[in-house]
């Protein structure tokens, strides 16, 4: 059976005022290497069938990872039984109705078909490049083939298929490291030799790191670091659920110029460089939205529940309802600028270049104040040039403050952690302490 057929078949196994069946399935593989050899090499085939039953505005969920008919019948009936135990929700639950969807490209066959041997050959080539430079490498090369199908009793019938690949590598000397990564729906865009060269160049340039004092520094953020900041903004930034809880930073700044006018953020489910989706996890059609326009937050995002609860329009941002996470933007794209990274560096009199952050966490959500460490390449910039590698530092700062001082964005945008983002040049970032390496 095809996945949508499984959804529709499962719908028939239970009665309810509204019933929804979400089917996800994936085949994924990952080759992990460290100390310049492959130490883990894994493959997984899995699926989830989640049934939501709403009776008298009481909802229940049940999930299985089996496509056997008996299992599908059992999970449908279990969801129905659970709904009967649930109290009546004061907010009317109205699932989306029949919709048309934008046609997406089929997943890239070459990306789906990467073999363990191909991944191992790529890793071996990178090891052979790094070892003569006196560097050891670690990283992971993965590919994934996924399916989503949703059917509900209001007429939703949606299905999609996707693929992705990711190669990331960290090159290390005794006192330095550098990392590089490519994530893409098309494996043809992964050039292991370019990635290993980027990582090794950064590891070599950051050898013999020196220490600087905590304080405020002009900063160039590579796209890895910039995407991590933008990702933290997303945690509680745009969701109607976090607005309800009072932890949403946009709710007090809607329509106000709080960032630099160089900062524009979209949620774009059709960007071909990301994980495209034609619909959300309730089957509501997806569309491109502007979240921050030239430094001004302009909207929150909603699913069917929060749209009804707040009287707003559904924006197509439902996450799987059984998780209870509420609506969330899943395809963040930051608009690029007009300059290269080298041009950004050339304009810095004295500052730092941050390659990436590590273990960052929000402290105060309304200010988007976070703390996190730099990792795999922190550099001192003087007189427009990289002067030296630096020992890693801890940032404790407000992302609103950092991006209010955004000077310009890189003319290229790339995907990292599912966020498509350029490198950024900002007036300053605050280091609160340093570490020993």
């Amino acid at each position, binding site marked *: 059976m095809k996945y949508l057929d499984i959804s529709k078949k499962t719908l028939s196994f239970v009665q309810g005022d509204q019933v929804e069946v979400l089917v996800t399935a994936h085949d994924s593989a990952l080759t992990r290497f460290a100390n310049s050899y492959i130490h883990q*090499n894994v*493959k997984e085939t899995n699926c989830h069938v989640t049934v939501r039953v709403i009776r008298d505005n*009481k909802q229940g*969920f049940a999930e299985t990872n089996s496509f056997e008919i008996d299992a599908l019948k059992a999970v449908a009936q279990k969801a129905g039984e659970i709904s009967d135990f649930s109290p009546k929700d004061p907010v009317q639950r109205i699932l989306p109705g029949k919709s048309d969807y934008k046609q997406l490209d089929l997943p890239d066959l070459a990306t789906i078909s990467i073999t363990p041997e191909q991944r191992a050959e790529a890793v071996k080539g990178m090891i052979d490049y790094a070892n003569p430079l006196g560097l050891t490498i670690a990283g992971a090369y*993965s590919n994934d083939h996924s399916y989503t199908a949703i059917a509900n009793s209001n007429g939703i019938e949606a299905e999609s298929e996707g693929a992705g690949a990711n190669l990331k590598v960290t090159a290390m000397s005794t006192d330095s490291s550098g990392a590089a990564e490519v994530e893409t729906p098309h494996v043809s865009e992964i050039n292991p030799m370019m990635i290993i060269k980027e990582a090794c160049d950064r590891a070599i340039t950051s050898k013999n790191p020196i220490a600087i004092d905590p304080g405020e520094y002009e900063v160039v953020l590579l796209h890895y670091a910039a995407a991590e900041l933008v990702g933290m903004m997303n945690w509680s930034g745009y969701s109607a659920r976090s607005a309800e809880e009072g932890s949403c930073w946009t709710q007090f700044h809607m329509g106000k110029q709080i960032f630099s006018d160089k900062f524009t953020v979209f949620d774009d489910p059709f960007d071909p460089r990301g994980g495209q989706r034609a619909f959300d996890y309730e089957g509501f059609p997806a569309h491109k939205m502007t979240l921050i326009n030239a430094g001004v937050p302009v909207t929150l995002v909603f699913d069917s529940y929060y749209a009804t609860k707040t009287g707003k329009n559904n924006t197509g941002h439902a996450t799987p309802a*059984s998780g*209870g996470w509420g609506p969330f933007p899943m395809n963040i794209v930051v608009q690029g600028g007009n300059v290269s990274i080298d041009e950004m560096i050339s304009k810095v009199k004295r500052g730092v270049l941050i390659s990436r952050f590590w273990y960052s966490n929000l*402290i105060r959500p309304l200010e988007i104040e976070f703390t996190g460490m730099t990792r795999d390449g922190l550099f001192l910039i003087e007189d427009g040039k990289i002067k030296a590698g630096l020992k890693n530092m801890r940032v404790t700062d407000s992302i609103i403050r950092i991006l209010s001082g955004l000077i310009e964005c890189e003319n290229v945008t790339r995907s990292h952690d599912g966020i498509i983002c350029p490198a950024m040049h900002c007036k300053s970032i605050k280091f609160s302490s340093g570490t020993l390496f």
Partner: protein
Amino acid sequence: MKDHIERALKSATLEGASYVDIRIIDNMSERIQAKDKAITSLSSSRSQGFGVRVIADGAWGFSSSSVVTADEIEKVAKEAVSIAKASAKTIKEPIKLAKIEVFKDDVPSGVIDDPRNIPLSERVKLALDADKSMDISGIASHEVGIFNTFEEKFFGSTEGAMIRQERIESGAGMEAFAADDKAFAKRSYPQSFGGDFACDGWNFVIKMDLPGNGERIAKQALELLKAKPCPKSRKDIVIDGSQMALQVHESLGHPAELDRVFGTEAAYAGRSFIKPDMRSCFKYGSPIVNITADATIPHAFGGLKYDDEGVKAKRVYLVKNGIFCDYLDSREDAARLGVEPMGAMRASGWNRIPIVRMVSVNLEPGDLTFGQLISGIDDGIYFETTLSWSIDDHRLNFQFSTEIGWEIKNGKLGEMIRTPSYQGITPEFWGSCDGIGNRDLWHVWGVPNCGKGEPMQTMHVSHGTAPTRFRNIQVGVGS
């Protein structure tokens, strides 16, 4: 299941594997989530599958599937061997495993008060009662989660192991949110990360008394909006047990993982500053600091009888009298270090390969009452309930914030402090420890969200801790 296991072992061996193990798992979980006087998620989930791990041509291979049939097991076992042979293109030396005693065993859950015997309506009512208890004027939102998991796991290996283990996990927690146009505050009970967890049945949830604590934390959330900020200076501090669980987890548990030490987590979870030559001689903390890895604690969330390599659980000291003495390890890493494996290889499910994880890693209790801990401070801060955490990838520089704090003035708790933070360097920080709460204050906290590995594995671990005192610590970092 025995037939499935033997089929996997035989198929992979015939393909050329020199070692094979298989785990077959049936996992059922239940989640009840109440929010703002409604049930927002009431769900039941079942995940079945198996994972086959092999050594072939001296390298590791792993494959897994959710389809538990004889044909699929044979296919996946062969696939694991093919993957291992691809891995072998890069190996420097063939994998060696430390020798272990091989067991055949059947391990029941040991839980008397099985949550499945409690009517679902009763479990739902508890969630709603707890949620309602936080519904006081001014609170923006409140939420309760109750979780139960039931797992049956079979393990077999070509060395002759044949082990069946049952596990029943239960946990619960709740949060109250308050906000105005200047500040946001959250209070959690009994701790962050969704609450507290154990393998101790439904009574563990009942004993938390969620409804009896809702109004208290909701009022505190409102008070936090007006509370004074954390001063920026060096102070003596006392950290509550739940935040101490995080402190142990991040700055002692993770750096003691031997795979980090050997670099196999270097690209993701990171490395460790504890090098092998520091074993048995490095001063990790003050002489009163004793840290154990103990998977044998009854009903602990990080407890187990056998790990996912079939190694029988042990209690070992990681730090004894302040000196670092041992690692959390795997059979492969133990062979490399020349030690006996202690049983810390765990996978988060059938679809993940085992990696080195914490079990129950504990700061052993001291001899002070809470009053004695506080009374020894003239000017300090008491920290309670984790809010924010961050540590560098060698596990040295950390910075943590808690939801709430109180001044300590002349040996007594004083005014409330919002979002207090402290920062330190791991060995210096543990070296400043001069007081640990006694056995009466000691509790094994269940932590459900320890992330590590690629693909990501979220592991259930635990930490026995009591409130603990540290001297001359940097507090009040950031705005």
